[in-house]
Every structure is written in C-alpha cells, then in structure tokens.
C-alpha cells in the first residue's frame, strides 16, 4: 500500500515525508503504544500506528526498519521529533481518528498485521 493511499483512507495529515515517497511500499501494519511490543513483532517495510509522540517512536521505527509512522487520535509530536524523523527518512502522518478506527479502516482496505505475518512465519523467527 502506498503512503498516498494510507493518507486517503485515514484522512491523515503528512507531517514529514521522504524524497521517494511514491516508491515507499507498505505491506503490513502494527498498532501499539508499547515500543517493546512493536520491536518484538514489527517487520521492515511496515506502518506503525501509535498514540505515543516521544522521540523513542522515531528511534523504534529507525531500528526496526519501519518507514511510515502514523500518530492517532489527532496527536502531533513536537517539532524536533518531526526533524528527527526527517533526518532518519521516516514518513510521519497524523490521523484524527482513534487507534481502533484507524486500524480497522486500514485492515478493511487489505492491509494485514505484523503479528499475523509473525504467526505465519513461526514465532521463533529471528528476522
């Protein structure tokens, strides 16, 4: 799924983008406010939906290879966090809807969850 599609489905605002945004392809998503949970299950090339707006969200995305983060419930991070995301080449979006609605809308439009993939590939996978 392209960033533009996610923006359309969630009616989201783009807070920071990357040069090759149109080439960014999202294959799955993960919604959580617990970064350790995110790190445990999220895969590369995925979307992270979260209500947390700390710098650690950006670091989590960087380390886990997440290229798009969407803040839910109308939350927006501070300017320096947006700058950090730009530096790390991570797309930041802000959606007005809550976590449940955002996840539901994306799932209905065909985006699957990282946990689902994890189960498919056996939980013990190191990748």
């Amino acid at each position: 799924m392209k960033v533009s599609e996610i923006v359309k489905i969630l009616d989201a605002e783009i807070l920071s983008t990357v040069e090759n945004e149109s080439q960014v392809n999202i294959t799955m998503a993960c919604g959580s406010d617990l970064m350790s949970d995110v790190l445990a299950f999220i895969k590369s090339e995925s979307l992270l939906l979260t209500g947390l707006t700390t710098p650690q969200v950006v670091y989590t995305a960087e380390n886990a290879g997440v290229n798009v983060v969407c803040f839910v419930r109308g939350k927006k991070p501070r300017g320096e966090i947006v700058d950090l995301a730009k530096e790390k080449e991570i797309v930041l979006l802000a959606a007005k809807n809550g976590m449940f609605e955002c996840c539901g809308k994306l799932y209905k439009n065909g985006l699957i969850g990282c946990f689902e993939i994890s189960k498919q590939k056996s939980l013990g996978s190191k990748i």
Partner: protein
Amino acid sequence: MSVVQGMKTMDPKVPSKTQELTYELKVKQVMRKNVTSLKPDSTMNEVRRILRDNKISGIPVVDGDKLVGIVTIEDLLICLHELGVRGIDEKVKSRMTKNVITVYSDEPIIRVVGKFEKTGYGRFPVVDRNKKKLVGIITKGDIIEGLLRKLEIDYLKEEIHTYRASHIFTDINSNGSTLILRYRIIGGEFTKAGEQTSKLRKNLLRLGFMPETIRRVAISAFEAEMNIVIYTTEGELIANIQPDKIMINAIDSGPGIPDVKKAMRPGYSTAPDWVRELGFGAGMGLPNIKSYSDEMTLESEVNKGTNLNFVVYTKK
C-alpha cells in the same frame, strides 16, 4: 575568464578547495600533449588549414625541437588584411610572434593563471625546464577542465571514504581484527534515549553489514540503551565488531537486578508507570534482546550493576 576572476572574488584569508588545487596541480597534469606545430618555413595557408581543422586559435612554431615562435588566428587575419589573397603564401616566420611567453611543465597552475591575467593571452606553449623543448600547450579551458577533473576525483574519494568504511577489515592486515566502539549513556535523559544506538547503527551501515544483521543488533542495543536510561544513572554500550560477528556489551553501575530469571520472563517488569507512559517497561526488553541475538548472557548484582552481553553473527 572565470578561473581568474573567480579567485579574485574569493575571501583571500580562507583558501578554497579550488585555490588549493591551483597550487597543487602542475602544468603537465592539465596541458594538452599532442601539440600540432609548424616550421618557420611553413605558409600562412597551412596556418589557416590547421586552425580550421583543429578548431584552435594558435600554433607553436618549432625549429627542430626548439620553440621559436607562435602564430595565431590574429596574425593570419592581419596578414590577409594587408596582402589580400596573396597573404596565404606568406612564410610563418615573418608573421609569428618571436618572443614567446612560455610556461614550464613543472610549474603550479596558479603561476599560469597569473600569466593569463597579466598578458591577456589565450594560450601558452609549455616547455621542459631543462631541455627547453616544446612538450605541450595550455589554455584557460585546459585549466578549468583539469581542475574539474581533480575536484571530481577528490569528491569521489571523499564520498567513498565518508560513506563506506567496509574496506577497513580488508585494509588492516591481521589474523583477526576487532573494531571497538564505545557509547556513553546518561541515565534519566529520556529525550536522548535511543541516540547512541542510532549512532552505532549508522556506523554498522557504513561498515557494510547486511540490513538484517544491523536490524537485529540495533533493536537489541536500543532495548539495552533504554534499560540503562530508565533504571540506572549511567552506563555504556561497547560494540566489539568483527567481520563475522558483532558483540555488544551493555554495562552500568547500578542498581542491579534482584532476580535475573524473573527479569528474563516476557511481561515481567518492575518499571514504574511513568516508564510505561514512554512506551517501555512492558517486560519485553530483555526477552527481545534474547530473541534477536544469537547468544546472550546477563550478570547482575544488586547495588553494583548489570553486565549484559549479546552476540549477533553476521550474514555476508
């Protein structure tokens, strides 16, 4: 000409890269070597033909090996203007400039730039300092081209140097090299928590490790960094990097973990609520490190500190 004027407008106190290069580069590195030359007895008709065929504006005149003059498009025009069509039969030696200003092949190009500025000429024949033999010709265009070429080479070298350090292990000759990188972490500094791992990750990318390997190291190191920031006053991440494995040692000076076995259990956490509000402290940190690394050991003593080690074997 841009080279000359451009240098004048630059701040003289701070030499630019281009200015440095004009001292570094020698005439022989930028001059044109295969020079078309004429003999004193050649005719102005030959001058016309060579200028037209080679799209040049001046030709050195040599007697044997020795440079005796230079004949230019201007000399040809004046000759034709004065003598009309008969001008083409004139001998070069009667029309050429005899006191030719030359440059030496081993001179830095800054001197040539100065000479262009002073004389207003478009080209200088290049002679060998010892034998006084004509070895080439140099124009302002040749200087610009030479400078651009050198800048491009330097830029490429710098780019390779800056963005790829992957050759370090092959460059250093030993039976096994280890690169040790240390990152200090201050406890309680939440706005900066994650910064050290980010630096380590960037270096691993530069060292040319596979993305999958880097991801496993980065996630584990990030969890270790968060633990140090959340629970301790200070600590350090020490990365021992070898071509086939990356070992990370995360140490701190307290307070230590009372029950290491319990701490390893997924979901077990002693974190206060404010840590959970930051998205951590869900009891997944240590289990995460264990699952992303190939080997992990954890030693801890209450009030002394914690020593966490993990290894990720690299895939090449």
